[in-house]
């Protein structure tokens, strides 16, 4: 019962009162969808008649970048669309738990007579916030696809993908494929895990440095195609379903789950001994 009350409070204050966050998610998604429609026009101009789908639109937003091969003549350019999808959410979820802990949350902690429920409620809030944020992006892409007559299916157009991400055909794993649903969901799950990791990190270092760590982790993931760089699982085109040398999303699911569980447990233990008073 206490947990439900806490969660209700968090949903009210951390999600419902922050409509601006979801308005920003909608604007970001709408801009990227508009951008995608331009790339579809260019695709059609190249003489391609194959149809594009909702999956291509999602791939455009969550695709990330192709494998980067470091070389003095090939400077690294970070995938700005992908960064603009994931980092704003890290920013939006950065402050609420920390602020709550220093204000009203202190009263709540006293009244609930324990810290576990507070932490569990904040973790649930974090999961819900991430899901809502990505839900808004997916919904915007879905509505955009409906309005612009793009097919609602999971078929990936590999020619379109080559054009958007400048991937050589010999690096691709297969021809046009129907993407499994979990491949679309893994970036969302990773985002949940990363946000939880960031929230846990806030208990050890200041929120600002926690954000900095996450930003560096995401950039390093874009730089290195490796199963150990978790950000790779948030880039759909780095999946082995798309790239021959891509990362396995099944393993990714396990790693993301491990990151989630570890963050939750570490945060819970740390929060148990955390001094909530006299923090700026």
């Amino acid at each position, binding site marked *: 019962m206490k947990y439900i009350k806490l969660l209700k409070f968090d949903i009210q204050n951390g999600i419902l009162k922050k409509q601006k966050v979801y308005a920003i998610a909608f604007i970001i998604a709408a801009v990227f969808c508009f951008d995608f429609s331009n790339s579809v026009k260019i695709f059609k101009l190249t003489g391609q008649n194959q149809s594009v789908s909702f999956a291509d639109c999602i791939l455009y937003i969550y695709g990330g970048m192709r494998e980067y091969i*470091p070389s*003095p003549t*090939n*400077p690294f*350019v970070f995938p*700005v669309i992908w960064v603009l999808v994931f980092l704003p959410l890290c920013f939006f979820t950065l402050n609420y738990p920390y602020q709550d802990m220093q204000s009203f949350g202190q009263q709540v902690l006293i009244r609930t007579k324990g810290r576990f429920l507070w932490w569990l409620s904040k973790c649930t809030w974090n999961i819900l916030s991430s899901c809502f944020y990505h839900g808004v992006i997916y919904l915007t892409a879905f509505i955009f696809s409906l309005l612009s007559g793009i097919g609602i299916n999971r078929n990936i157009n590999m020619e379109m993908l080559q054009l958007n991400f400048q991937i050589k055909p010999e690096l691709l794993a297969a021809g046009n494929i129907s993407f499994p649903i979990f491949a679309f969901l893994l970036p969302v799950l990773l985002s949940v895990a990363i946000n939880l990791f960031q929230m846990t990190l806030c208990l050890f270092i200041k929120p600002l440095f926690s*954000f900095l760590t996450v930003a560096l982790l995401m*950039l390093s993931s874009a*730089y290195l195609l490796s199963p150990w760089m978790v950000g790779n699982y948030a880039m759909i085109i780095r999946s082995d379903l798309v790239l021959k040398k891509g990362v396995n999303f099944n393993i990714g699911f396990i790693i993301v789950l491990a990151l989630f569980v570890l963050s939750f447990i570490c945060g819970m233990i740390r929060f148990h001994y955390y001094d909530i008073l006299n923090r700026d």
Partner: protein
Amino acid sequence: MWNTFKLEIKKSVMNKFFLIAVIIGFGITVFSALYNIDRYYYDLETVSRIERNTGAVYNPTSAGLTIFNCWIGGEGYTLGSSAFFFIFPILVAIPYGWSYCEEKKSGYVRNMAIRSGKAAYYGAKYAAVFLSGGLAMVIPLILNLLLVAAFVPAVTPDPSYCEYYGIWASSLMSMLLYSKPLLYVLIYLIIDFIFCGLISCFSLVVTAFVKNKVVAVLFPFFIMLGLDYSQKLFPSSTDPSISPMKFLHPFPLMRQASWTVIILEAVVFSAITFIMTVVRGGKNEIY
């Protein structure tokens, strides 16, 4: 008024956050330096091994790898370089971007406004944030340059090795790199200093609307990301780079930098930050 300036500037560079920002910045640039120093010695070793094995005298390509393409600003492909030029908008706001937010909350602004006047206080605050932001950017760059200079010679680059430098005839100040490379580096450091000073002042701008320190410090980063994305409005590869995250890198990343864009953006950034901080702040009701 002079005392207020001195006080604010002292506070901006003599605080732990300034030190932390410089240490983080330098820590990241060390990755780039270690890789490039190693690459330089590997190249020397390769040439001498070929000479030993074949007895032939090979071109040592002494102008191929120099400090000017081994320091962090001379290359754009190591993780250190990529990370530094990605997170610099955060690093430059860390030292003092949060200060106005903190002082507004604690009531310090009111005391200062009574003692020194609002214009002097906001002017001093602007100058201090500008200075700390600029220094937080250039100190790690200079330290990296010095570190690399301890191992790699400062041979004047030869235009016939331009593919090693990524600076072509159409690149910004290409003449200068191949004739007076130190001046080229110095001018870029000045550009970086000015821009990072202005970028950190965006933290002051946002403080007018939000009360949160973290938001104030991270705001410039998202402005820069937005500007980087808006490069899509100029899709042609011949269009100059409009993103400070790209053109503040002395090594051109995809697009070439242009003086017109640099000056125009500097003027726009100055106008926005100055008007929103000093002019608006001077008229603002602080009680």
